[in-house]
């Protein structure tokens, strides 16, 4: 059975502190120079190591290597994807720069590659202290640059990350969302403990799939709540406002929702509330069909009726 599914993109700019070794390496790239780390055995590592793999001491000795090197291994990337150095077919290669003992991975812009091929760095138009200051490699040779004065290390590098997913619902989640589209709220009963879960789910107490479908009311009681006073990015309401756990009549587990239409200071545990649905023309397979909950004016529920949910 095909259940409801929807695309999801997650994006975040990772900012990373670089420290003394990578900070100088990135500062070098910004100035179109490549620095390698010399370890106690005399080997030069590019990209640099921060700690000596033999003595475990911090690496302090950075030496300049050539922007030209030799392809040690390669593969062909016929279909570049988002974020890669080039947007047309290109090669990936492990490249040992002249003066270095270890190869680094990067893209090569060439029509064909072979092991032993000589390639040089093509620098990005503008250096910013990032591995992407190397736009890619290209066939050819170029000399080592003039040794410049000491470089001020780069402290932070930023790397944007974007990942795309297809979220897929379970049969129970699918049933729940399709009911919401019709203005109904359903739960399902655990065959072992007989509790009604809203939304329906595998019973976390018994580890068994839920069974009987149960329609529950769009009204219930506040079990506990908090007053949101802190502003945050993407906030849609102006603080203060109330987020509460609402135990719907017929359910054995509360759902989280907004309580509006009442002063934040007047919301109480046990307060009876009812769903305020959005206009029917806007309903779809989403919990957003319920805009918020509001007090019904009924007498408060007694403490014993919700004590086990606290």
């Amino acid at each position: 059975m095909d259940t409801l599914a929807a695309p999801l993109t997650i994006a975040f700019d990772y900012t990373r502190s670089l420290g003394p070794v990578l900070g100088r390496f990135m500062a070098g790239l910004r100035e179109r120079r490549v620095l390698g780390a010399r370890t106690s055995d005399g080997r030069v590592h590019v990209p640099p190591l921060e700690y000596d793999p033999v003595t475990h001491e911090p690496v302090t000795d950075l030496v300049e290597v050539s922007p030209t090197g030799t392809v040690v291994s390669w593969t062909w990337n016929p279909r570049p994807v988002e974020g890669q150095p080039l947007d047309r077919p290109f090669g990936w290669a492990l490249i040992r720069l002249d003066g270095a003992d270890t190869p680094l991975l990067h893209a090569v812009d060439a029509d064909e590659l072979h092991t032993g091929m000589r390639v040089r760095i093509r620098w990005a138009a503008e250096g910013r202290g990032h591995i992407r200051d190397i736009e890619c490699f290209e066939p050819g040779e170029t000399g080592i640059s003039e040794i410049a004065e000491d470089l001020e290390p780069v402290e932070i590098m930023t790397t944007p990350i974007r990942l795309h997913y297809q979220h897929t619902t379970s049969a129970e989640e699918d049933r729940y969302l399709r009911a919401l589209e019709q203005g109904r709220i359903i739960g399902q009963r655990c065959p072992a403990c007989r509790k009604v879960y809203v939304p329906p789910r595998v019973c976390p107490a018994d580890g068994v799939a839920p069974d009987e479908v149960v329609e529950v009311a769009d009204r219930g009681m506040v079990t506990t709540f908090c007053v949101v006073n802190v502003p945050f990015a993407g906030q849609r309401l102006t603080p203060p406002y109330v987020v509460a756990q609402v135990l719907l009549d017929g359910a054995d587990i509360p759902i989280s929702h907004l309580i509006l239409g009442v002063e934040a200071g007047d919301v109480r545990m046990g307060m009876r509330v009812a769903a305020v649905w959005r206009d029917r023309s806007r309903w779809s397979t989403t919990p957003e069909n319920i805009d918020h909950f509001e007090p019904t004016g009924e007498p408060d529920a007694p403490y014993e009726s919700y004590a086990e949910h606290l």
Partner: protein
Amino acid sequence: MNTVAVVGFAHADTSLTTSGVETLVPVITAALADAGLGRREVDFWCSGSSDYLAGRAFSFVSAVDAIGAVPPIAESHVEMDAAWALYEAYLKILAGEAETALVYGFGKGTAGDLDRVLSLQLDPYTVAPLWPGAVSIAALQARLALDAGLFTEDDMARVAGRRAEGPYLSCPLREHDVARVADGVAAVVLAANDRARGLRERPARISGFAHRVDPQGLGERDLTTVPSAVAAARDAGVDGAVDVAALHAPFTHQELLLREVVRAGSYLPFGANAMFSAGLSRIGAAAGEVMSGRARTAVGHATSGPALQQNLVCVLEA
């Protein structure tokens, strides 16, 4: 000190929902049935998964729903293939802190573009920002091995039961050299040896278990010798050939590299690349050979990270 044995195994390569919980329930139930153990008799639970795979926060917490955590249970999680969760559970029993354990792994590898997701396990300063896919990095490793004359493209194709012909996917890898990406769930039940013998006639006793890791820098290690697999096999006491081995090799050239490390009379073919459960499944399959009586000695192997960076070897005996 306790000895530890595998007493039950189940797995599924069916499609998962984003939460995966619904798919875990029947697999865990089947593993417990295979071991003849009740859910409440499990002393320790341990799982392996990663939120990056399906793009859902705290999925391992949701997964605990599948095992029933009321009243409270002893539970742990690793952000690795569940073979490493098995190692944690093994230590727990070895130390006498538990007599039984259930280990499970799950992953919805098809929710996103696995090749891109796996870029994020690379060095975050100098490699990950280039987004080289896992297949491209494996291809660089394959070429080094081919250039070194360790094997040929024909040898690689034979691992997949194919011939080295047709277009390259990521040269020198063809489509048959790359395991299919799949969703997957696996569960293995462990028991201390005295308990194990009461549960089934032929438990698969773990006689050696070790894991090792190679440096993160792709240029910092010899990609053709898999030093961490060699070290793990040595630490696990692999000595000469075992009857059967189940290697976790998402690429055919990796199977060939690993066969040099783990010698066996026969090798169980690798199926789909089910992230976070495939390694545990290999150990379960190897244990199954011992429990069924088809083998007296077996090795289950798991890998993690780019180009066989991290390797785990579990030796099983009747």
